């Protein structure tokens, strides 16, 4: 049994539920049988990959859905072997080069070269080029991105690159200027409501509008998360009732609890506690950036005007250092310690002010 997210994923450009003008543009782009390199960007759960697959289907037909997993191995300059698994059909290959860590440059160059050197079996019926889809392109090292720019130009006739990324700021300008950028914004409230209702209708269940509204509010405009939440609700209790609780993802609840603990007490002992909780989050593969963002947002909720600004600035500062450094735990912990110091100082100031105030009164 497939999840709803996969089961009801639109399969062609005309089936897409929102961003219709964009779909029209893409269709036009593809109709001529050729297209430039693409850079698809947008937040997670906005439908980037769905659109890419639709686009590929529009070009090559249903054959792109016959996927297989392949394992490639590459030799680094220092003679180390790295293994990368890719998902491929006869027409395209999907790879996440950041799996190779700092050796992603080798992967990109070799992979594109091998693909560009193999011809399509029957070039009459099919296109002359294959498509390489690079997911998580923002996690490519600068080295790999520089390597990509020449590779992209050189093998233009045999392969096209589609990059899929969350934030375009992390791509070097040279890559950006070589691609046609396609912005996919997250769906808004109405679009999400219509998709949720449609999905539920297809599943033959009744979704109360109040519940739908709550799910959407909690999903932060992330379509995938909303659908998953909806399915979880159905599993928990059926038929659905309007006042049903909508559960956050586990890690989110965990981060929220952590934030509460920090607010409760500021001491070295508590910091040790927090450290073990942070370790647990990291051990469950929650990206440190996400932890930072959620934790900062949660902590800010409990602060006052001036402190809010300081907290968010501190978070930004430590998050930046995290990108430069190697182990995320240091920076997460530093942020927590910094927050504790600021918060305690703030509370003490407030008490002092209060005492002063009392003194004046008497």
């Amino acid at each position: 049994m497939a999840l709803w997210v996969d089961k009801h994923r639109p399969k062609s450009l005309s089936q897409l539920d929102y961003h219709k003008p964009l779909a029209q543009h893409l269709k036009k782009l593809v109709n001529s049988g050729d297209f430039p390199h693409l850079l698809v960007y947008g937040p997670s759960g906005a439908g980037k990959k769905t659109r890419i697959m639709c686009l590929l289907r529009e070009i090559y037909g249903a054959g792109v859905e016959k996927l297989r997993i392949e394992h490639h191995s590459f030799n680094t300059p220092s003679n180390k072997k790295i293994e990368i698994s890719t998902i491929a059909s006869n027409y395209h290959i999907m790879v996440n080069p950041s799996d190779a860590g700092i050796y992603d440059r080798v992967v990109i160059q070799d992979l594109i070269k091998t693909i560009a050197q193999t011809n399509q079996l029957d070039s009459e019926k099919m296109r002359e080029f294959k498509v390489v889809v690079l997911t998580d392109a923002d996690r490519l090292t600068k080295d790999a991105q520089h390597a990509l720019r020449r590779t992209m130009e050189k093998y233009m006739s045999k392969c096209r690159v589609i990059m899929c990324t969350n934030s375009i700021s992390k791509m070097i300008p040279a890559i950006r200027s070589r691609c046609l950028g396609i912005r996919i914004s997250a769906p808004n409230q109405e679009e999400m409501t219509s998709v949720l209702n449609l999905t539920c209708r297809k599943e033959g269940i009744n979704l109360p509008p109040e519940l739908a509204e709550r799910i959407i509010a909690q999903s932060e405009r992330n379509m995938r998360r909303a659908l998953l939440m909806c399915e979880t609700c159905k599993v928990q209790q059926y038929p659905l009732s309007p006042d049903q609780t909508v559960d956050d993802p586990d890690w989110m609840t965990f981060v929220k609890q952590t934030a509460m603990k920090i607010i409760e007490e500021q001491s070295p002992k508590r910091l040790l506690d927090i450290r073990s909780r942070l370790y647990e989050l990291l051990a469950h593969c929650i990206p440190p950036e996400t932890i930072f963002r959620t934790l900062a947002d949660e902590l800010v909720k409990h602060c006052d005007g001036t402190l809010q600004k300081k907290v968010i600035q501190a978070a930004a500062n430590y998050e930046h250092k995290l990108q430069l450094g190697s182990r995320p735990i240091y920076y997460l912990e530093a942020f927590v310690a910094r927050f504790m110091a600021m918060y305690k100082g703030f509370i003490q100031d407030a008490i002092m002010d209060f005492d002063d105030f009392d003194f004046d009164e008497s």
Partner: protein
Amino acid sequence: MAENFTGGKLKLKGVKDGKVKKKKKKKLNEDVVKSEIKRESEESGTSTLSADTVSKPKVTKTKAELAFLKAQQKREGEKILKKAETSHKERVEQFNEHLDNLIEHFDIPKVSWTKMDAFLQGRSGIKPKVAAAAPVSTAPQFVPWVEKYRPRTVNDVSHQVEVVAVLKKCLEGDDIPNFLFYGPPGTGKTSTILALTRQMFGKEFGNRVLELNASDERGIQVVRDKIKNFAQLAVSSKTVNGVKIPGIKMIILDEADSMTNAAQSALRRTMEKFTKTTRFCLICNYVSRIIAPITSRCAKFRFKPLDTSVLDDRLHHICKEENVTCGDGVIEVIRQVSGGDLRKAITYLQSSARLKKDEEVTKQDIHDIAGVVPHTVVERVLELAKSGNYTKLQRGIQDMMHDAYSASQILEQLHDLIFEDSSLPDKKKSAIMEEIAKTDKCLLDGGDEYLQIMSLSTVVMTEYSEL
């Protein structure tokens, strides 16, 4: 030892055994007889059965072989027909078109159809390509207009008057210095040196020029091996055909500012040692990133940012050539968005033209493709920051992030807005500018967009609240 010899009668070298000869002769005779019988039977139209039985030993080719022969003949016929379809002149035209479409080999000169044969003799390797090229060129191929409209001679380079004047002088005399080109992206640095070398070396371009850019491996090892080996080679001042060309080679180091300092230092002596045979051309955006010993060895040329009129001219020209219809003010928008970078401008134009196909390109398309954030969005961020309400600001920025606007682009436009805001005293402006610079650096390092923009806007908020 003895067992190595073969037994049997003694034989004379070169003389065949009479016995075998006899046998062959007999068989031959038999064959002749049989074939005669067959012919007779065929002519007289006797029963096929008898003919078959008699002619059976005659069939020397297998079924598969016969089928192959048939297919071969058929293919040959088709080939001839296909060849006859296009005249020689047309084929040459197709070949030229194919050359135009190649990205890498823009150095191969165009061919006049009367001189085609001489040309092909000189480059025998290309001949089979002509036939192969024909079907390729019929399919619509995606050639970057940036490559298509690259200037082909030094004279075509627009706007860089001083540089062109110097380079022309260089072309007249045979000697040229080492070059260092610097200037903002998209001003024609690479195009100029490519045009210059193409003019200088003509057909020898491929042998005389080594082009390395950032995507090639360019560490110290490459400088020591590849560059040195290439620089060491001696070249004559005449081509194979006896045409006189400068007796030097050219090494173009594109994007030289991304070379490591160690690699640059390794280059110093190489540059001096091989001055007899090799010239270098370094191309970079920031001359300050090239170490001083290198800059002092080169003739420095600064490439000015392109004028608006030059950009407009070029874009109009391309629009006309490619049959792109632009709405009012579209060219102006492209010019603004590209910020004097001609390559960017052309790429935007091409992308939007492809996205819209035959329809008119509008301002909105250009904004979409360039990833420009609508003014209203940026203004809203500034409004929120001015309002001093943290929760509102947070929600506003979250929404903006969900709309997938690029943080660096927001930064750029926010910078413009704050720069023009006359209500803000200079001291506060500079404080915000400093923060923008810091944020930009953080974003470049890969910092989280949401946190960085939040942090920046809280600073903006503080500055405004103190007014």
